[in-house]
């Protein structure tokens, strides 16, 4: 690993986005600016970010892992996947919610800048090599999301959602920060590598406690660090809406402006899961056995609770919030298999990453499509009646995304679930897998409700989609079916990036 004080390449995408956000704020707020300037600036920034990502990817094979800014940020084949996924989520969100930006003429630059900053923050979070960086990235991203949630103001729903999100999110961040502090107390280090080494030493060459009631016992991993790990994970599990830390999600998804919620939901989920996976892969790897059982428990509770509550919902965004809790559970099953089982070589990571990638893209696009129908207000099922006739492209795409989320074969959702369940089965979580399969069937009940409303019920809803929205949605549909029928190369690619 090469550690440098200044290595601009390691933060190139984040830097491009941040600079873009600054430019947007500087130029865009002027009253003389024409509407297309903002569009051009956004496109320019996204193009620069893409260029930065490409450069990183091209350099990567030479410098296997490089760390910049004294190890604060790392660039390796896994982090680049996460940053890339966040970039895809952001670009889809920009396309799907551009009308929202244009409708808020005076606020438009702020919205664009906040989306860019949120993305940059989360990118820092997933490529961090140090716990402080993790926290800073998380806060930059989260605070941007709180404000984006409040953009529907003065609607009561939006105000309430933003307030709830802010209060609970700050609480979760505080818990996470406290966890980091305790980990520091237990290990004396905050860089991922230092924490890893400290845990490894404690486990491999345990010393003996010299005095006190436990004199003569092996020291092992200090209890304070274990508590710290637990609090750290609680903070991250909050971000990915795992039960029982999910209470904010339904209100936020329902109350946030409909055209913005796809970004709010997907970006937080990707960042949270990427951070959890990175923790499990690197700093917490030696002590993973201690968190495995709690993770499985959280996963199972999330799957059951998310599915059962989703069945009862009449608001589509609320329903997708609960289904997202169940999805968090499915992915956590993959996480709890662990990075690698040294004896069998079984890894839960490729399946989980495939799942997360396909799910987050589906989520952004689905919320975008829902907003095409219901705008920023509540999205009740009745609004979708008859769309199968009047808007076949929109209804067909929503149906395919719903089927993918439900895990129907021939869609990427099935491959993700299948990959996660197969490794979980080998890891011995038979009971959890069977429960999850049964819950997947129960989930058909609510995923199909939307299809029923669009195709089977009479209605006169009509909507129109912008051309660029149609293009990205159809690209998403093609990817969903392609990855559902021929996922081999993609999974290979992920395995290679993980160096398994």
């Amino acid at each position, binding site marked *: 690993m090469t550690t440098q004080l200044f290595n601009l390449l390691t933060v190139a995408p984040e830097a491009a986005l941040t600079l873009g956000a600054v430019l947007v704020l500087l130029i865009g707020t002027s009253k003389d600016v024409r509407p297309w300037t903002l569009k051009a600036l956004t496109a320019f920034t996204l193009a620069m970010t893409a260029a930065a990502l490409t450069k990183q990817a091209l350099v990567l094979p030479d410098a296997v892992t490089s760390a910049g800014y004294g190890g604060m940020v790392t660039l390796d084949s896994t982090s680049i996947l996460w940053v890339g996924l966040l970039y895809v989520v952001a670009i889809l969100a920009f396309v799907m919610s551009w009308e929202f930006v244009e409708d808020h003429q005076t606020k438009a630059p702020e919205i664009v800048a906040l989306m860019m900053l949120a993305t940059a923050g989360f990118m820092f979070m997933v490529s961090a090599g140090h716990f402080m960086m993790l926290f800073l990235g998380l806060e930059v991203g989260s605070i941007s999301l709180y404000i984006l949630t409040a953009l529907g103001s003065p609607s009561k729903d939006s105000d309430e959602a933003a307030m709830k999100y802010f209060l609970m999110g700050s609480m979760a961040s505080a818990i996470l920060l406290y966890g980091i502090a305790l980990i520091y107390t237990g290990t004396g280090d905050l860089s991922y590598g230092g924490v890893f080494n400290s845990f490894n030493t404690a486990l491999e060459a345990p010393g003996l406690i010299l005095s006190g009631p436990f004199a003569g016992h092996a020291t092992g991993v200090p209890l304070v660090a274990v508590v710290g790990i637990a609090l750290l994970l609680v903070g991250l599990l909050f971000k990915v809406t795992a039960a029982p830390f999910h209470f904010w999600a339904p209100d936020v998804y329902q109350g946030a402006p409909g055209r913005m919620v796809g970004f709010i939901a997907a970006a937080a989920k990707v960042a949270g899961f990427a951070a959890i996976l990175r923790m499990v892969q690197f700093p917490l790897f030696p002590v993973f056995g201690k968190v495995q059982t709690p993770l499985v428990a959280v996963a199972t509770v999330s799957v059951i609770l998310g599915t059962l509550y989703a069945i009862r919902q009449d608001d589509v965004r609320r329903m997708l919030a609960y289904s997202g809790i169940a999805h968090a559970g499915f992915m956590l099953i993959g996480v709890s298999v662990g990075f690698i089982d040294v004896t069998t070589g079984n890894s839960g990571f490729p399946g989980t990453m495939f799942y997360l990638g396909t799910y987050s893209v589906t989520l952004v696009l689905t919320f975008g499509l829902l907003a095409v129908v219901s705008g920023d207000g509540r999205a009740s099922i009745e609004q979708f009646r008859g769309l199968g006739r009047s808007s076949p492209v929109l209804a067909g795409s929503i149906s395919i995304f719903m089927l993918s989320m439900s895990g129907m074969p021939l869609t990427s959702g099935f491959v993700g679930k299948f990959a996660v369940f197969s490794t979980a089965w*080998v890891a011995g979580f038979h009971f959890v897998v069977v429960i999850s*399969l049964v819950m997947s069937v129960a989930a058909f009940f609510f995923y199909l409700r939307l299809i029923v409303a669009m195709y089977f019920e009479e209605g006169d809803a009509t909507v129109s989609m912008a051309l660029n929205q149609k293009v990205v949605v159809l690209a998403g549909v093609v990817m969903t079916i392609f990855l559902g029928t021929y996922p081999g190369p993609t999974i290979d690619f992920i395995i290679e990036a993980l160096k398994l």
Partner: protein
Amino acid sequence: MDFPILSVLIAAPLVAAVIVGFLPKNRPNLAVPVGMALSAVPVGLVAWLFTAFENIGPAQFSEGKVLIPQLGVWWHLAVDGVSLPLVLLTAVLVPLSIGISSRVSDNPKLLVAMILFLEAGMFGVFLAFNLILFFVFFEAVLIPMYFIIGIWGSENRIYAAIKFFLFTAFGSAFMLSGILYLGAQHLATTGFWSFEYSDIFNSVELSAGAEAWLFWAFALAFAIKVPLFPFHTWLPDAHVQAPTAGSVLLAGVMLKLGTYGLIRYNLVLFPQASVDYMGIVAVLAVIGIVYGAAVAIVQPDIKKLVAYSSVSHLGFIVLGIFSMTRSGAAGAVLQGVNHGLITGGLFMLVGLLYERRHTKKIADFGGLAKPAPILAGVFLFLSFASVGLPGLAGFPGEFLILIGSFGTLPWAAVIGATGVILAAVYLLWAYQRVFTGEPTVEENRAVRDLSAGEKLLFVPLIVLVLVLGLFPRILLDKIEPSTDAIVEYVVSSTSGVSE
């Protein structure tokens, strides 16, 4: 490997569905004729397959390409004597079910496309030789059928569509966990994942307890699909609410996905458990035979009557499979084809009756033979075939099943045979109430007879019913090498069956 005939067979309906989807919007009448013409392609392919098929036990025309190497998922297709007849049945029934939909006014393009998607999925189920690929097709056929029932069904269609979907998906969840177990066992024995049928057959050793659990996990999925008593409750709802094309394909082909799965997977992969539990399954099958027939007798609704007759007939097929005898298994496959042709035809007739009179109540009909003699004649012909009149298609299959099951499960054969008598009761009594006598209601005098186009739809059915009734050897020669091999394998690798 030269020409990938089986992949082409699956691709042909998919391409056809896309073509139908791109037909001009302002010419909705084009959908049905174009769909019929395009669905003739699979018929031709299957006909070629039928002639090129060698009468040997192992699977032929095998072709494969790895899809997910990390998990051992292959695109692996092959055909043997168990699947060939069912592929043939599918290819024959699809054009007919498209043809019978010519009076659908609501978005016929989408309906035809859905039927063609369904055809591709059903081919896939019968041809897949990789467990995951099989599962994918097994689940995928739910979607088009769900739409067919939900969009073009009668008043209670949404309830029926969801019930159909959830019932089948529920069973599949347990099967998928069973499939995962088998793949993981393969990983444990050989060190790599594989869901290949032959790999699992050859390398996976199961403990007795695991085999029993797996047997039931698979059997539950297939029993719901068949449907075996007491998992049949979705079937009357789905059949009655489905449009005619849906009923034809549901009864004709989709129920056979279950019986096919029982032979291909339960018997071969879990032979000891199959023998251990053959009695329990046979009891359920016999209950299904008698119960289905008894309920059919008292049905006031003619479509429901045909639906319950399917429960009864499918009971025979399951009984044949679990008799663990050569004639029972061969008869079961043959009867699968026969039932598909006969019941498919009956559903088509019921659909035509509904088009003419807008009712399915038997009491509303009466004396229809006067204004519609040909319709009545075809109904009577198919009823006789369904009852099992010698010389017609229903006879050889049921006869083989009864002979076979009498050897190992005599009590089941004896009770099951009453199903044949009950079939005569419900079908002929229904014929009598619907067609004979003087027309009681004025509308019944004005019922149109079959039009020329409708007659044409029944010609292939009648010809096949006669041919298979008189010369069942045509199919049995292809079926028997495969079913014999399966039954011999089951009997030789286990203890406890005496033929």
